[in-house]
């Protein structure tokens, strides 16, 4: 292994040690901790609701759920402001919510309603909210890389302090788009953060069977940027890793590749027969590695939030999602006369 790899690994263990320590935990304000939990719960309940309604036949199209990966979008986006950009994936509801999109309009979009973020033209796979810098989910795996790099180029040319983040899966790191984008971002030192959500499966194919490296972060070496591995189901670790990368980018230090190791609790899409893994594997992950359960255990253990506080947060979220659902269900579909709207400016 190269030196870069050693640096990556040592960075990682350093952050793990730090995160386990009381000293650094004290740096997480109560407000931020509450935000972590609330956002992760929002995504989880949003996704569970979408899954249920999809199976009931209320939602058309395809749906790819973010369940089990909530800590990544939440931890990364907690470092961003509205003027920062993110480019997302087909599994994009979590990113949309974490970047601050309106839950009602997000839900309405997934229903294909006129009141949706994209007026019902995009749906689950093409959800976007430009008002909060969310440059869109993408129906093409690996489609977001170069859009994010372009946004980073614009930021750099406009001499802004913002950053551009692209979320992608381990499968997408095998697309040529990743390699062209990584090279360009590093060659031009653009403020881009590549966040790999390594959920162990590229669609239905286990990571190890189709990817040349165990760690996607190792690929950073080839592009002259730092590569960092982080436990993607530990929101504190994700937040810290993203913070460092975002700060580097904001200060002209160029791009970073963060590999967040996680696990896709649900199938590739809702309805996936999941012939490629055992229930045991999934259940084990859900019991022991679910980012929300892990947060809750840690929160209680380290007195970050009380059980009562967490219950109150969950109750608040339940209401929000209920309202979002009601809004979506009661909203009208677009009229057929709107077919050609927004094709050209």
């Amino acid at each position: 292994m190269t030196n870069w790899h050693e640096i990556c690994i040592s960075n990682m263990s350093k952050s793990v040690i730090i995160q386990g320590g009381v000293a650094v935990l004290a740096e997480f304000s109560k407000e931020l901790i509450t935000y972590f939990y609330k956002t992760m719960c929002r995504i989880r309940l949003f996704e569970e609701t979408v899954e249920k309604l999809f199976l009931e036949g209320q939602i058309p199209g395809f749906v790819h759920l973010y369940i089990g990966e909530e800590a990544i979008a939440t931890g990364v986006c907690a470092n961003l402001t509205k003027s920062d950009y993110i480019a997302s994936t087909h599994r994009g509801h979590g990113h949309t919510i974490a970047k601050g999109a309106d839950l009602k309009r997000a839900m309405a979009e997934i229903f294909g309603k006129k009141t949706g973020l994209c007026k019902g033209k995009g749906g689950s796979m093409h959800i976007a909210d430009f008002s909060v810098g969310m440059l869109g989910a993408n129906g093409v795996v690996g489609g977001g890389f170069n859009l994010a790099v372009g946004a980073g180029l614009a930021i750099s040319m406009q001499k802004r302090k913002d950053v551009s983040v692209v979320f992608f899966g381990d499968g997408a790191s095998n697309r040529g788009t990743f390699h062209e984008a990584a090279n360009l971002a590093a060659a031009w030192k653009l403020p881009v953060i590549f966040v790999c959500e390594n959920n162990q499966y590229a669609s239905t194919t286990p990571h190890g069977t189709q990817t040349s490296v165990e760690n996607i972060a190792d690929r950073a070496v080839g592009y002259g940027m730092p590569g960092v591995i982080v436990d993607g189901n530990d929101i504190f670790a994700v937040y810290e890793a993203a913070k460092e990368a975002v700060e580097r980018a904001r200060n002209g230090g160029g791009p970073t590749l963060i590999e967040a190791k996680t696990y896709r609790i649900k199938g590739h899409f809702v309805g996936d027969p999941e012939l490629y893994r055992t229930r045991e594997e999934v259940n084990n992950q859900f019991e022991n590695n679910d980012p929300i359960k892990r947060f809750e255990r840690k929160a209680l253990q380290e007195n970050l939030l009380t059980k009562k506080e967490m219950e109150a947060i969950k109750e608040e979220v339940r209401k929000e999602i209920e309202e979002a659902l009601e809004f979506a269900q009661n909203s009208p579909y677009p009229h057929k006369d709107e077919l050609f709207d927004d094709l050209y400016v």
Partner: protein
Amino acid sequence: MREITFAQATLEAMAEEMRRDERVFVMGEDIARQGGIFGQFKGLPQEFGFDRVRDTPISETAIIGAAVGAALAGMRPVADMHFADFMGVCMDELFNQMAKIRYMFGGQCKVPVVVRAPDGLANRAAAQHSQSIESWFMHIPGIKVVAPSNPADAKGLLKAAIRDDNPVIYFENKILYRELGPVPEGEYIVPIGKANVVKEGKDVTIISYSIAMKHANKAAEILAKDGIDAEVIDLRTISPYDKDTIMESVKKTHRLVIIHEAVKQGGVGAEIAAFVAENAIDYLDAPILRFGAPFVPVPFSPPLEDAYKLNTDEIVEKIRRMF
């Protein structure tokens, strides 16, 4: 009016638009330090710097993807494709990202990207450096496609493309770069979507664009000696094409000929012929004639390439037989 080349006309358009709007920048392979392989970017970095005139890696996917991303973040990028043939490399960025982002996101954003694509047969460059592929993009909603045939249009259409808030693909023929022609100085815009009736006539409508306009004009000239008064239309914009001008002309002349350098099968001519057949077949006094390349890749060997090319004599002969 002063005369400049087609390449100089595009350069003038770029410089004027970059002076007018600091959001406009250009990136591509070999454009800054070399000035473009056809000299069409010469001098731009000296005036605007290497930040706004960017040499990119040989990464067409990144060029178009980043152009789209930069447009979403408030810039107005011009992306050069080196050769139109290389658009295949970044096809997803062109047709799934650039073309669709505005529509599928419900009009939340604009995508003011200009893709410059040098096309056509030149210097015996063979199968992968000689193609005319405008018809691919005519099939994709969300993109505009233009193809100037002379220096004045080269300037006017490029300025219009840069100012357009939609993605525009600008096909510029490589042989035309050196062509001289009168070009208005300063502000000169050729509106996108409007064809140009180059020569009025009453007997037959000849529609063409880009380099093939040479054949259209030449054929009309020869036919005039036979007493056939051809109306010649320079389409200028491939998508959205000017249906009104076409209909008006065909209703007047009752005969339609379409000429382009691109492969005839599935070409722009096929679309126009179908459009006229659907909407004005009763006006036609003869079957529609289409001229384009044979259904084969561009061959290298000179005699083979010559056989591949459009032939004015053949065009004239076939048009004569319409009467």
